[in-house]
């Protein structure tokens, strides 16, 4: 039975029609709405690659049924900032060159931005704790921590 889900994505009304409302939000964003900032990393809530903001809270979009996003505010990496108006953390990622392959960067930035929204001046320990469930296999962690601290200092 197909069903239409309506939500606000990156500030605009968006709707997707799905066969199965249990489909994770991640697939709606990537395949139906063309927002490929969030990535599929594990589909298990273990790595953070798929992180988006749901009503401002960092959320694993691979774990959220698209039906549960009905009427809610979704922000993806594309909506966080743009080259013209970057989020301070995006600018800090560039300044610190905190990316290797970048597959994890979506999760790092979305998780880090949620931390900064709640805790504008975190300590290095707080940054590491906030990102404890975000995996990076390329080893960018030292730079990611520096980038979050830089964004906090510049905000």
């Amino acid at each position, binding site marked *: 039975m*197909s069903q239409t889900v309506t939500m606000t994505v990156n500030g605009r009304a968006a709707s997707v029609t799905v066969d199965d409302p249990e489909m994770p939000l991640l697939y709606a964003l990537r395949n139906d709405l063309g927002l490929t900032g969030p990535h599929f990393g594990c589909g298990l809530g273990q790595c953070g690659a798929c992180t988006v903001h749901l009503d401002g809270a960092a959320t694993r979009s691979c774990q959220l049924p698209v039906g549960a996003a009905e009427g809610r505010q979704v922000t993806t*990496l594309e909506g966080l900032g743009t080259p013209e108006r970057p989020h301070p953390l*995006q600018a800090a990622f560039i300044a610190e060159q905190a990316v290797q392959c970048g597959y994890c960067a979506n999760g790092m930035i979305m998780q880090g931005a949620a931390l900064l929204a709640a805790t504008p001046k975190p300590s290095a320990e707080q940054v*590491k704790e906030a990102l*404890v469930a975000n995996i990076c*296999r390329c*080893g960018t*962690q*030292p730079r990611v921590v520096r980038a979050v601290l830089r964004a906090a200092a510049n905000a």
Partner: protein
Amino acid sequence: MDGMQMRRRGLFGAGGALVVGFVLGARPAAAWTDKPVALDQVDSFLAIDAAGRVTAYVGKVDLGTGVRTGFTQIVAEELDVPMASVAVVEGDTALTPDQGATYGSLSIQVGGVQLRQAAATARRALLAEAASRFGLPPEGLRCEDAAVIAPDGRRLAFATLVGGRAFSLAVDANAPIKPPEARRVVGRSAPRVDIPEKVFGRFRYVHDLKIPGMAHGRAVRPPAMGAIAEAVDEASVAGIPGLLKVVHERGFVGVVAETEWAAIRAQRALKVRWSAWAGLPEQAKLWEHVRATPVAQRQVTSETGDPAAAIRGAAKQLSASYDFAIHTHGSMGPSCAVAEFRDGKLTSWSASQATHNLRKQLAMMLAMPVEQVRCVYLEGAGCYGRNGHEDAAVDAALLAKAVGRPVRVQWMRHEEHGWDPKGPPTLIDLRAGLDAAGKVVGWESEAFIAKGAGGNVDLVAAELGGLPRESLSSPGNIVHNLAQPYGFPAVRTTCLRLESTPFRPSWIRTPGRMQNTFAGEAFLDELAAAAGADPIAYRLSVLEDPRGREMLERVAKLSGWQARPSPVRDQGGEVLRGRGVSYVKYELVRTYVAGVAEVEVNRRSGAIRVIRFFVTHDCGQIINPDAVTAQIEGNIVATVSRVLKEELTFDRSAVTSLDWASYPSITFPEVPEIVVELVDRPAERPWGAGEPTAAIVPSAVTNAIFDATGVRLRSVPFTPAKFLAALQGT
């Protein structure tokens, strides 16, 4: 050769236009484009269009390491063009020269050096052409901002000189490259060209590729690695909307659907009756299994004097065995590929690190002429060797063929952890003898390693489906660094190449060099302790190479090393601190690295933390210092993860560590602080950076654990359980 001669030979002349898709009569009709790809032609590497924009074509691919930026710098430097006007095309079998697979930290050392020579040849030709048009000798001319400038101020843009046409010129190994003092782009930390798009979600990974008519596929892997599908119950997935087809060929089973979610649902729901298979060894007896595996070949990798006799006659004899667990690549993004058949030709997009090889493998498997297959690299998640990318490309190709539509396949996490090829288990026995003064008189080692070298890793679906394949074992070129960099009077190092290894092997970051350096540098530490010597002083007493000595001396200074023997005495408290050193000259012929690890060990819980890691690094000429530093950091973090946490688990039928809970990766709070000191040698050739640093991490860490606790861990990973067991044994 002067400009006139080249003109007569048609340099930049009519014809040979670099229009992709234009097929010259002389080339086989099956060729995809007329673009040359031979390694000896400038046009294979470089094109300058009518607007003066430069395209570099390289067979090596980025893999997330930033090497694309390095290639951009190299071309911008040699041609004197802004980095912003250089684009890089990587790993497209129709467009790029076959520079070999992207592995071994060879992208700059080999790929970049070939590209640099092509650019240097092009630059000289541009100067000669401008000279003839100016009517001046080329010596007085210079290049600047994509133009040749005469002493009188006249200017000829590259676009005017060659724009849109071919160089038609062989790469000249003697074309002069820029001397160090003239360089302005290379040797500096240019920001990486890919990062802005990646932080704004605009970068297009292979995972993001969408082509018209594309369907989504998933393979359904057997629960036992060698099982055959005896029956497939298509009715079990009939209710899934959008399902297009169930494909079944021996052990290869797959589903194709209109949407990705439908394909995933079908992958989960499909009922298959699989044959039984239990061909894996018992994990608890892995090392017995390795020792009992028939030896296919004994290969002595270094030999001096008679070490056996020297050890027999020594004042003190030591022996030890080191083992290194099976590791998975565990790329952050599961492998992904898209395949399309059109007019009898196959185009395969993947993040393969060896598209030219993949092309041959696909052609063989599908019984197609190789000319009918084009493999295009698109960046994927970072891969640290040959992971599952090629296998996903095969799944996509088989499914696309079955449905007659383009198909995208992305593996699920359990497929990546379960089916990517593995770093083979490695076991190393060592013996040494010391004289009364503690000096090494003899050194012997044997490494039990999977046979094979760096060829192509077999394709999962070809194997499961019983399709034509090469049937090679390709664990990577793993014999290096068993031979020692030190001046021991008598040495024999031997590789015992084993007939088989439990899992399909492939190279994972620093294959062989990591395991061999682990055993060698840790065992040397045991000898230093037995001799009552400081570990750095002990190494320096047997190391002649001045560049290597410099790395060790620098790392001692960088880390504030206090000279004393290990272990440290009289530490109170529950948490013990120590430091350990390690050194490598990569493959004994290139990059020098020394490192010091500082660890904390909780002697009650066995928890081990690497607090800090210091590295000194000499890879000859540095193209981009910040990118080299980032590679070093990444290799340390990833290798600390491997040696503290990672180990494949399996039962008799299949891998059981199928997610990040059962195969954990390092977390932020566990990441050490890293301090890097680079030594740049602009007048030398550039060597690889990346892998060489990973080689020293396991030994530096275990040496530090020994320093802190007096407990010697000889088995990777260094888990709390192993520490506590070893503590009991001391």
